[in-house]
């Protein structure tokens, strides 16, 4: 992250805000999608996250903590958006899900759909841990700070989350989860 960006934002530098939003827009959008929102709703949610961040920027302690801090805001915004969209879950939709990200090949796009579908089937608290550690590369301590839970709880949720995701993936694809060597053992 650009050094001094957080301080400039706190000082009200408009250009700094634009740089911060531009640098984090893709990440916040990605979080919203992987935590269960449709692409259009994730776009709305990302704006809501940044609007909230702008109001509460004084509470962000440091540039190193910015990622965790933004994730805390994102998970609350996503939870609100999911509650508001309950009626879509009540009535099944006939439209096929749209891809949320740009991909180099159709295989990758199909992979995305499958991954999102599997994530949507596991408990949200476990999905959050998977997103932070397996997608974003957070350490256990960083994830603990982002989620407001002890690192030990992160570890136990990660174990459950991996098992749940692997089971769901196998159910949908028939591919054994043991093929993922990187999931063996703790990080």
């Amino acid at each position, binding site marked *: 992250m650009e050094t001094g960006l957080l301080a400039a934002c706190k000082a009200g530098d*408009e250009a700094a*805000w*634009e740089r911060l*939003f*531009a640098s984090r*827009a*893709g990440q*916040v*959008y*990605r979080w919203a999608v*992987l935590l269960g929102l449709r*692409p*259009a709703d994730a*776009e*709305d949610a*990302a*704006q809501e996250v*940044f*609007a909230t961040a*702008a109001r509460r920027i004084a509470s962000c302690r440091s540039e190193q903590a910015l990622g965790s801090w933004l994730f805390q805001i994102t998970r609350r915004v996503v939870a609100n958006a999911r*509650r*508001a969209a*309950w*009626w879509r879950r*009540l*009535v*099944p939709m*006939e439209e096929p899900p749209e891809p*949320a*990200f*740009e*991909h180099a090949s159709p*295989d*990758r796009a199909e*992979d*995305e759909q*499958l*991954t999102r579908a*599997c994530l949507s089937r596991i408990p949200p608290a476990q999905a959050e841990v*998977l*997103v932070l550690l*397996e*997608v*974003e*590369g957070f350490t256990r301590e960083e994830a603990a700070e982002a989620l407001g839970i002890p690192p030990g709880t992160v570890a136990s949720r990660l174990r459950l989350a991996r098992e749940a*995701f692997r089971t769901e*993936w196998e159910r949908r694809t028939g591919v054994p989860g043991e*093929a*993922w060597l*990187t*999931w063996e053992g703790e990080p």
Partner: protein
Amino acid sequence: MTGNPLGRLAGARPGRDVERRIVEGSLGRRSGAPPWLVRFGLAGAGAAVVAAGFVVWQTGVLRVDDPPGAQPGPGARAPPAGPSPGTLLVAGSEALEVPLGRHAIELATGAQLRVETAGASTGLALEHGAVACRVQKLQAGESFRVRTEQVLVEVVGTRFSVTRDRGCTEVDVQEGRVRVTAPGGVVADVEPGQARSFCDGADAQASPGEAEVREALRLVAAGAEPERAARLLDGYLSEHAGGVFEEEALFHLCLLEDRRGRRGRASVLAERFLSRFPAGGRAERLRQWRDEGRFGR
């Protein structure tokens, strides 16, 4: 494809236009000024709206029918009269009347409402306060819906108001009839002259046959046990003819039978649906599929 599928999404990003909209919309919200005022200039309707004494914010998420980059041609249709999708309407110290095509709504003072879809299918999300709606009789393919956190209100040519106050939504019907769907699965028809409240966590009495329909729709959504889902829907239609879930049960049973290869039965169900519920998006889709020869005999 080998490797951890989650790891393959590391760094995944949306298209540049999506990121641009997020950034511009966020900057607009931060400044408190409508971003389209700052960057895109005023439309005539927008100017009149601002002059009326309330603020319209465009969220930056536009749900338009035209593909990105499309240029309007000589035969291009005119945009619908009223706010475009994504617009947030906020009434200030005075009530605010807003046209929505052939319909109209009036926001009470302090009310806040978001336009989710516009045109033939009008969808509104009431975030705070009260809105009164005057809905003209809907034509084939049209719909008008208002939702809050508690309920989804669907109408066919009526006058009604929806008031949201913290954890409760009150639906008051002056003319016509509205159908209300709540998260607990309760579906209620509110008659003219009636007012009903729907609150978070309140005990709800399920409609007859509701459990069977909900189970069937759950199976449909999961793509599981189509035979059982069909039996449940068939049972509901036999035992609760004219029930509040008749439309959902008939529509989804028609699709299920088609998927199971029972085209003749699907065709009969489609015709039955079209005679019972001739208006709305589902009827349009069934007519289209029927005309394409999807339902054989």
